Each structure stands twice: as C-alpha cells, then as structure tokens.
C-alpha cells in the first residue's frame, strides 16, 4: 500500500480483512468438521477389514491315473482361519470349482467359509488354469484321485483336526463340476465327513441326452450345453465359460462370474509353460500348442465327444464312460451326510438329477437334505434371499457334521418361488417355503387338469432349422426376462397346442408335472419337445424357467389311431398357476438347444389316451413360507418410530423445563418503563456491532436513536425485537427480561429494516394476515385506525408487489401500530416518504406517545429527530455518546442565521442589543447570531428599525452541530473501526 493511501482506507481494509477472515474461519471449521466426519465414515466403510484368515498358495504335485504314475501339478490355495494352529486344530473343507473355472472362481466362497472357522482348500482341477494335466471329466482315476491326495496333504498339516491318523475332519462342497466331484470323492474316500453338492448331475449321460419318456434310454442330445462345455475345455478354461461358473452360489456375492473366468484362463495358459504335462494323444505338450480338436481334454473323452456329438446318439462305450463319471453308480457307497442343492432355473442339470442323488444316498440310511433355489445354470445365483438361505443351510450342515455344534439339521425340504422383481436392486425376488419332509418330484398331492384338442400334424424342419428357442445355454445369470418366463418362440407348423379351461383355483405346483401324449411318425421314430405353458387371461403364455421336456420315441405307428399313450415327465418347476389362467401343453418338433433328426418329416401328435382327453397331472406341495428378515425390519421400523416419539416428547419436556428455569422475575422498578437497556452488546465473531449501549424509554416519550450508518442502531433494534440474541447486557420491557420470543414482545409494535410483506397479497390482506398470525382477538387490532394512518386509500386493495417504496413504508408503519402497542419501535420510518407525509408522520408519532405510550425512532435524519422527538440517544461506534432531552442535547440558546443587506450596520445594531450573547460573520451577507435571552422577533424588529434589510431568518439546526461535535466528521461507521 503506497504512502498516498489515506490512513482511514488502510484501517477500513484491515477491518474488512479481519471480518472476512473471521467468517472464513468459522466456515472452514464447520466445513472441515463435516469433511472429516464424511471421510471418517467412508474410511470406516471402505477400510479393509481384518479378513480373519490367511492364505497359502502352493503348487502341489500329485500322482494320478489308473496306475498312479502320472505326475500332475495342482495350483492350490489354502485359506487358514486366524488362530488355527497345532494347539487349536480346525476342521477342513475342500471347495471345488465348476467347469471352466479355477481356484480363483471360488475365492469369495472360500473367504466366507474361512470366516466361519474352516480351513478351506481350493484348487484348480487338472486340465484347467495353472494346473497341469488334462480334463478327464471327474474320472475316479484322475480328478477324484487328485482330491484324495489333497486330503492326504490336509491330514499331514498340524493345524487340521484329525479323526484318525491320516484322516482329516473334512467336508467337500462345490457346484456343478465340483459338486459331482464331491459326490464321487465321498463315494471313493471314506475320510469325507460331509458334502454339499450343488447344481450337479446324477447321471451325466442322461443329463446330456435328455429323455422325458420312460420308453427308452436313448435321449435327445443337448447340443448347445455340450458345445459350451466342450469349447471351454478346448482352451483349457480360457474360452467362454459364462454361466458355468457358479461357484459363487451361496456366497451371495459375485453374480457376474463369467468376467473373471476368461482372464484366469489366460493366466493359466501363459503362466505355466509346462502345464499340460501329459500330452494328449495326437497333441503336443503345453497349452500354447494344443491339439486343435481336443485342446486340454483327455484324448479318450475328446474322442467320445467328437463321436457322440456328430451322431447325436450315445453308444455303449460312451454310455459306460459317462457312467463311470456319474455319481449314480456309486451312490450306495456314500456315507457322508449330504446336503443337495439344486437350481430351478437349470436346463442342464434339472431337478431330477438331485432327486436321483437324494433317493440313492438316502437308501443307505445316510442323512440327506434337499434344497432348491431359483437359480442354476440358466438362472445364476438367483435372488438374494435364496443365496442367504443356501449360505445358512451350508453353514448349518458343516457346523453340525464337522464341528459337532448344534442339533442335527432337520430333514425339512426348502425351496423358493419367484414372486417378482426386486424393485431396488433389480434382479428377482423369491419367497422361500419349507415342508417337513422331502416330497420328491411327484409332490405330496396332485391336481389333474384336462387339456383338449384333437390330433394335429406337425413338421420337423430339415436339419432342425428353423427351430424354437427355449433357453440360452451359457448366458447364465439372472437376465430375468430370459428365464423366469422363458423366451420361447414356437414356430408355426412346428407345434401343436392343447389347452385347458381356465383354472377354478390357484394351483401351487412343486415338482414334475406329467402328461400322456400319443404320436405317429412315418419313420417310426420321433423327437418331440413337450412344454407346459401358463396362459394368463390375456392370452400371453409363460414357460416356467424356459424348461422343456425333450423325448425320443421309437417304434411309433404311422397312424395316430394306433399310437399308444406315452407318459411324459415334464421338467420340475415351482410355480403358482393362478385361478383364471389356463394350462397349455405344446408339442413341438425342433428346439435350438437340442439335436433332432435332420430329415424333414411330418408327425401326428395328440394328448392323452385315444379314448379320452389329455390329463395334465400337477404335483402340489403345501409349503409354509419361511419367515424372512422382513418381520425384523418391521420391528426396527416400529422401534424407530417409538424412539422418535419418545425423543420428541423428551425434547419438548427439556425445552419446557429450561423455559421454566429462565428468570421470569419482573423488575418492579421498571414495571412501568416501556424500555430499559443496560450494557447491550452484540458481537459477530471478532466483529463488534454494538459495544455497550444504555438508554431508557419512558411512557410519553418519543425517543430518537441517532447515529451514523453502521453505528449499531439497527443491530440494537434487532435485539429489541428478539430477532437476534444479545451477546451481553440486559433489556427490560415493562420490567420483563427480554429474550427471543418473550411474550412481552407482544406489547411492542415494530418496523425494523424496512417493510416485509407478502407480495401476492393486497395491503389490506397483508395486515389481516399479520393480525391473524398474532392470534389476538380481532377487535384489538384497530384496523380502521391503522389503515387511516397508512392513508393508502383505495390502493390498500392492490397487491403489495405493485406498491411504491413509500406506500410499503406507510403500510409497514400501519402494521406496527396494529393493536396500538404500548411501545412502538420504528427504524427509519420516514424512509421513502415525501415531505407532507413526513410532516404527517411527525404529528402521528407525537400524538401516539401522548396517551402513555412510547415511541422509539431510529434515524439518521437529524431534522426529523429534532422536530419529532422529545428525547434522543446518540450512538456512535456501538456506544452511546449522548442521551437525554433533545433540547438538552441541543443546548439552551439556539443560534439563528440572518441574511442581511448591510452586514456592518447589522453588526452594530446587534452590538447595541442587550442580551445577545454573540455573533459571527459567515460569508458576505450572513451572520450567525447567538441571540441568548433575546427573542428572534425582537432581534428582527430591532434590525429592521435600524434600517437593515433582512432576506432570511433561519433558526440554526443545533442538533446537527451537537451531533457533529459528538460524532466528529468521521464518515466511518462502527463497522469500520
């Protein structure tokens, strides 16, 4: 700042800077606290929790093959819960991944289970990822043997609980490929203590060659699914594995399991050059140089696939090969308690696979429990409620059978039905149900519904194209529209429909419906697809989960009249067929997911036996809905509401008590004093708006509050109105201590800081609205008086937003006078008024105070105060510099200005006049005269007699003098101190 800058400017800027700093400081502190709180919250939410386990990655060499002479390295990871040690041994779990996955794809589940206190061993099966070897499709000689050696390794660890030397306490679980492994391992190795196979097969041959009729074993090739699997084995787990990787089942987490799969496949292929230790026949070693036809598949399996996929039929060899890899043949050897979890949205391994496993294992007397959920190879993890249920069931199962905690889990069967869409998280919502015993697929009861329609001719398209689309293998998880109600499009000419009458009541189907059909074919054979639709009254049809029943019929007559009825078992479903809906049986000739005959041929199809109509048998189960957390949340809500109510009551109670504790005493000495102010101080942070102000307003007085701008007048009035809280000081109104909202404020009428009206109302309506807000009786308002004071005439009916400033000002004064309050506080009341109105205002105020009321007027117009007020209080820089009667402040002897024609003569005349205190010459023709005891009249007449011409006689405004003397000529307000 240069030397030329006035010192005052410097001071002003310093003061300003200080104020800004103060403001910024407070903002920063408040903002800072907020930011810190938010950051803390985010950190708390996002802070990596102590995982509760540690992991050990290890390449484990195993010797495998029928002779146990082939070396394979398995990529393993062991999750050890915290605290597991030789002193505190823990039970173990083998967690197997699904086809095309790796140990990484089960990481989430492993973490969950490790958190439950199990040592979880995950590994990449041979032929996948970074493990070497080939895919033998859960061969007892390869993959199962690998797993047995993993059990050996677990048994050697000193922190794993043992049943006997070399026999760890261990459970096995996995989904799909891993689920079958758990069954096969439990059958082959008695050390396994409990298993939880999920969405897996009983008979792989039947799964891949589906047959829904009991006539022959020869099924229809599931070409789409088989192709998805084969291709993902080609690349050693690299290819598309979407929908296969369902290890996150029960983990409730990663619904989108296909994304990470491809990446891991790459890692496996690149990471370990010698991964493919056993060169397949005709193939080179190493994943980078795979047999183009077989990839990482073992040669025998690969050849089988190539053969049967081309033919579309199973031969004896392949049947035997698949049987060796199916639990069906070894179920009798499974002694480990088994929790079977199967998906309802699964066209690959439908419910009947789990049903066969359950019956086979239970036949040994081994504990078996079955649970279905609304997901599977087509439906992914399914709804959250299902994931939670499966998690609970799994944990409960191992808790009892491995840790020995808790009662033996009940045999009860649980399942779920999709009830709608989750409105918040998208995806589906399902309601869980339970029944005491597993009813199997036939239900506990049945309902038979007739469907009608005569024989129809349908055409098989050449090479099976075009064909209907019922499911989309490999697309996997959760795209609702694709699986809850199917995506089926039946093609004209390729299907026949048989419909029932509308159902009279809702049927809750749980299990496999069935229907009898007849068919005739010129070739004696037919491949047909039977579907059960739910048709709503509007005619739109839904195919539950997109599941269909493929069947291959042989030995058919050429004429439908001779055809024998065939019992078709439809896919297992859980669905409510609502009252008013119809059932529809559709018999179609081609489906994209299956491989049918390539020759074009026309079949004739019909439902039911020849002598009667078709009957659809629906299995029903009276399930009880499982209580969900809803009820709990409801209690939380009720508790919250109760808490809020109690809190509210408490706050009101405390506020009332505090109110009562406030000093309500009335100062008798000031009971009749409208306003008594002592030591009033108001600061905003560092800024002192009002330093210390004392003054009194008595009845009958019109007190002027004077001061330059920023002296603290308005701040003081704000405090008087209870708008702001004083920092210190005492204000008594009629002896009552003032506080914001104190009832005694009702005896004050105010105009502070300009008018405040509702712009959309007229002046009259505004006054009425204001008075209504006071809640006081109408007749106390004295409306007519107020309106007369406002003097707005007809304008009072106009909207306030159209008022001039002066009109608003007059209305505001009128509002302040409503009810004729005993103390009237007016802030710059003449602002915007024209001179006649100012004169009127002056008279009104003087008369107002004459009836024992009092008026406090703040103004910076000295003339106004001098002429209006009886008393004045001069405020400067937040302090009172003078107070008292106006004439006292002004002084006893007012001076007069005289403009005269002859200044010398006038001076001499005044010299001779007795009583004149003195005079001074002010300019060429003006005299400033202190007349003392002499009246103005006498002085003027004396001058005139002396021959002095007088142009003008003006009483000198002494208040201005006094004011300037008190305040100085500083134009700086208190804010600039």
């Amino acid at each position, binding site marked *: 700042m240069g030397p030329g800058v006035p010192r005052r400017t410097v001071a002003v800027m310093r003061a300003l800077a200080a104020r800004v700093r103060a403001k910024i400081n407070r903002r920063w502190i408040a903002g800072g606290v907020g930011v810190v709180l938010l950051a803390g919250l985010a950190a708390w*939410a996002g802070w990596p929790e102590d995982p509760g386990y540690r992991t050990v990655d290890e390449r484990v060499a195993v010797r495998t093959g029928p002779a146990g002479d082939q070396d394979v390295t398995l990529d393993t990871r062991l999750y050890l819960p915290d605290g597991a040690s030789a002193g505190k041994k823990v039970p173990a779990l083998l967690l197997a991944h699904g086809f095309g996955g790796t140990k990484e794809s089960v990481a989430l589940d492993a973490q969950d289970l490790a958190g439950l206190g199990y040592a979880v061993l995950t590994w990449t099966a041979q032929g996948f990822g970074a493990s070497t070897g080939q895919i033998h499709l859960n061969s007892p000689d390869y993959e199962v043997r690998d797993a047995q050696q993993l059990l050996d390794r677990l048994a050697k660890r000193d922190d794993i609980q043992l049943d006997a030397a070399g026999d760890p306490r261990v459970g096995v679980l996995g989904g799909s490929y891993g689920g079958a492994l758990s069954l096969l391992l439990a059958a082959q190795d008695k050390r396994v203590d409990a298993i939880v196979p999920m969405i897996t097969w009983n008979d792989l041959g039947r799964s891949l060659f589906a047959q829904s009729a009991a006539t022959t074993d020869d099924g229809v090739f599931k070409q789409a699914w088989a192709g998805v699997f084969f291709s993902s084995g080609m690349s050693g787990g690299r290819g598309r594995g979407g929908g296969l990787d369902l290890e996150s089942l029960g983990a409730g987490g990663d619904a989108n399991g296909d994304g990470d799969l491809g990446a891991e496949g790459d890692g496996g292929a690149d990471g370990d050059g010698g991964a493919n230790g056993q060169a397949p026949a005709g193939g080179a070693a190493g994943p980078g140089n795979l047999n183009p036809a077989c990839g990482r598949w073992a040669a025998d399996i690969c050849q089988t696939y190539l053969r049967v996929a081309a033919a579309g039929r199973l031969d004896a060899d392949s049947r035997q090969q698949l049987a060796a890899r199916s639990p069906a043949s070894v179920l009798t050897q499974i002694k480990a308690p088994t929790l079977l979890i199967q998906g309802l949205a699964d066209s690959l391994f439908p419910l009947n696979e789990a049903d066969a496993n359950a019956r086979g294992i239970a036949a040994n007397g081994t504990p078996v429990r079955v649970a279905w959920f609304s997901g599977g190879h087509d439906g992914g993890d399914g709804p959250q409620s299902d994931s939670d249920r499966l998690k609970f069931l799994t944990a409960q199962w191992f808790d009892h059978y491995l840790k020995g905690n808790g009662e033996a889990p009940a045999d009860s069967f649980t399942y779920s039905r999709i*009830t*709608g*869409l*989750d*409105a*918040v998280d998208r995806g589906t*919502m399902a309601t869980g149900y339970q029944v005491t015993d597993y009813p199997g697929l036939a239900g506990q009861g049945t309902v038979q519904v007739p469907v009608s329609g005569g024989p129809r001719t349908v055409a098989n398209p050449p090479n099976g194209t075009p064909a209907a689309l019922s499911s989309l293998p490999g697309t996997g998880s959760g795209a*609702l*529209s694709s699986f809850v*109600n199917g995506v089926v499009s039946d093609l004209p000419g390729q299907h026949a429909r048989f419909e029932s009458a509308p159902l009279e009541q809702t049927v809750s189907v749980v299990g496999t419906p069935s229907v009898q059909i007849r068919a005739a074919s010129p070739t004696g054979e037919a491949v047909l697809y039977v579907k059960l639709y739910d048709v*709503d009254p509007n005619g739109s049809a839904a195919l539950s989960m997109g599941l269909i029943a493929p069947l291959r019929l042989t030995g058919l007559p050429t004429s439908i009249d001779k055809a024998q009825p065939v019992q078709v078992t439809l896919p297992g479903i859980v669905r409510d067929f609502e009252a008013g*809906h119809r059932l529809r049986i559709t018999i179609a000739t081609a489906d994209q997911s299956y491989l049918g005959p390539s020759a074009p041929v026309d079949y004739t199809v019909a439902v039911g036996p020849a002598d009667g109509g078709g009957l659809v048998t629906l299995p029903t189960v009276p399930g009880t809905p499982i209580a969900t957390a*809803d009820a709990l*949340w409801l209690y*939380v*809500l009720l508790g919250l509401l109760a808490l809020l109510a109690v809190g509210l009551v408490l706050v009101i109670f405390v506020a009332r008590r505090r109110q009562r504790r406030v000093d309500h005493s*009335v100062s008798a000495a000031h009971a009749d004093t409208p306003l008594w102010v002592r030591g009033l101080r108001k600061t905003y942070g560092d800024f002192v708006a009002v330093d210390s102000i004392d003054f009194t307003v008595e009845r009958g007085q019109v007190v002027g509050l004077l001061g330059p701008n920023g002296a603290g007048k308005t701040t003081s009035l*704000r405090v008087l*109105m*209870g*708008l*702001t809280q004083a920092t210190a000081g005492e204000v008594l*109104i*009629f*002896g*009552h201590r003032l506080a*914001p*909202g*104190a*009832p*005694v*404020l*009702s005896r*004050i009428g105010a105009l502070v*800081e300009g008018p*405040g*009206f*509702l712009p*959309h109302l007229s002046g009259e309506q505004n006054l009425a*609205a*204001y008075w*209504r*807000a*006071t*809640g*006081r009786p109408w007749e*106390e308002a*004295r409306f007519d*008086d107020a309106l*007369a*004071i406002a003097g707005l005439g007809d304008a009072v009916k106009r909207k306030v937003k159209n008022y001039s400033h002066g009109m608003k000002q*007059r209305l505001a004064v009128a*509002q302040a006078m409503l009810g*004729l*309050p*005993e103390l009237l506080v007016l802030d710059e009341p003449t602002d915007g008024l024209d001179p006649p109105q100012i004169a*009127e*205002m002056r008279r009104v105020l003087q*008369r107002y105070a004459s009836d024992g009321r009092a008026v406090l007027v703040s103004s910076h117009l000295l003339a106004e105060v001098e002429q209006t007020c009886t008393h004045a209080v001069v405020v400067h820089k937040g302090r009172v510099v003078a107070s008292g009667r106006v004439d006292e402040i002004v002084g006893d002897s007012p001076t007069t200005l005289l403009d005269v024609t002859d200044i010398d003569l006038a001076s001499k005349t005044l010299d001779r006049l007795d009583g004149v205190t003195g005079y001074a010459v002010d300019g060429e023709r003006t005299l400033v005269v202190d007349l003392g005891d002499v009246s103005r009249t006498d002085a003027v007449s004396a001058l005139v007699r002396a021959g002095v011409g007088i142009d003008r006689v003006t009483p000198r405004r002494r208040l201005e003098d006094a004011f300037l003397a008190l305040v100085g000529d500083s134009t700086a307000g208190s804010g600039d101190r």
Partner: protein
Amino acid sequence: MSTDVELKTGPAVAQPDGAAAGYRAGRTLTYGAEFARQWRRKRTQLALGFMVVLPIILLIAFELGGEDDDGRSGRGQFSQLSDAAISGGLNFAMFALFVSASFLLVVVVALFHGDTVASEASWGSLRYLLAVPVPRARLLGIKLAVALSYSALAILTLLGTALILGTARYGWHPLQSGIAAEIPAGEGTLRLLATAGFLGINMLVVAGLAFLLSVLTDAPLGAVGGAVLLYIVSSILDQIEALGELRNFLPTHFAQAYLGLLTTPMQFDDIIKGTISAVCYFAAFCALAFYRFSRKDVVS
C-alpha cells in the same frame, strides 16, 4: 396518512408474563392461518394445478399416441407399467404416479418445503412474525405441518385426478402389473393407495432436506434447487454399483421400492427399509433445522 385518527386505547391490561391482553403463544400463527397464507400464493396454486393438468396431458398423449411401437425401454418388465397404462383407471393412475415419482413430485415437495421459511425471510416478513412474537419452534412446526399437508395434497390430487380421468376414459378394470397376475380392482385400489403412501414417505427425504436448506438460506430458489440437486446426486450415486453396501445409506436407494407393491405377494422388505431410511433422514434433517432455527440470528 391522516392525523384525525383517534389513537386512544382502553386500559390495557397486561398478563402476568408481560404479554399483551389478547396474546397467547399457542394461538399465534395457527395451522389455518399458515395454510391460508400459503394457499393464496401463485406457486401453490400452480403446483397443485399441475397435478390436475398432468393426468390430462398424459391422457391426451395416450390418445394421440396411437399404436405402441413395441419399443420397450429400460427397466425390463416394469416398462409394462406404461404399456398397461391404458388398460384401466387404476393402471392409468399408477402410471401417473410412476412418471411423476422420480422428478415431478421431488420438485413439488422440495418447492413446498424449501420455499416456506426462505421466502418469508426474503420478503422480510419472517422478522415480523418472530416479533409478534410467534415462538420459533412453533413457527417452524406449523410451517412444516403445512408444507407436509400441501405435499400430501399434491400427491392425492394427482392420484385422484388420474383415477377419475383414467376410469372415465378406460373404465374400471383390475390392476395389471409386470410379471404378477392381475390384481382385482378392489385390492388394486388399496395397492395404489399404498404406492402413493410409500411415495409420500419416500418424499420425506426431500421434504426434510429442503426444509433444512430453507432454514439455512434466505434464497428460496437455493433451498428448492439445492434439495432437488442433492436428490439427483444421490440418485446418480445409487447407479454406481461399485459403491456396494454404501448405497443402502443413500437417501434415494429405496425410492423405487414401491414397485414391490405391484408383485404378488407384495414385497414389503424394501418398503420397510425405505421407510426406515426416509424416516431417519427426515428426523435428522428436521432436528437440524429446528436446532439451527432456534439459535439463529434472523438478520434478513
């Protein structure tokens, strides 16, 4: 201005607490007085008027729209709500709610709550109310009650108009919805009311936020705009799935839970969670508003 006014009063008998004779704190700014104050405002009338106009616009749009071009957009099965809108009065009303829920109602509720204190402050009438004196907690309580009433009135007006118009044009039919079965008209009405009720509860978040901002600022536009803005930001954050569990704490996370009322059986899980969330936010915002206002220096 007239000087002939007789300014004499009778003997003024003050009460023991110092109040003027007719003054009772509990009688100041009654619910009715505040309701009338707001009722006369253009913005109140416009907002409520639009609730009547919107269903009419929708009806005209459906009438002019002709055949549906099968282009279902977003939200999968729930887009059937719009497909089914002309299948009956209930569906039409449901559709009207559905389209207003995400933005229109937010703005209207924010308007009623954000404007109420801030506009009085900006007009300068707030200080005169406080000088009456209307106790601060009472002033805020009455203003909140009236703003809530107008918000409820807006939702009911929309619902009522749509229901009457839709029924007059498309008839009284069962409620069609998404993948659930048809819902009989009687039960459908209840579900429609429950939907409107949950929408109202969910709007409490906006209401509380706007009300808090209204107390904090003197600019009505700032309060209304701020509340809408924060609501939108929350909605955007809710789209970011990477936030995981944190999203459950966003005030808008359960905004669409009312769709659960359209399935069979109804899903109350998210409705209840949404209610808990909304009530918590509303209580917190209101508590802050009352705390701040009771200590605030009113300088405008």
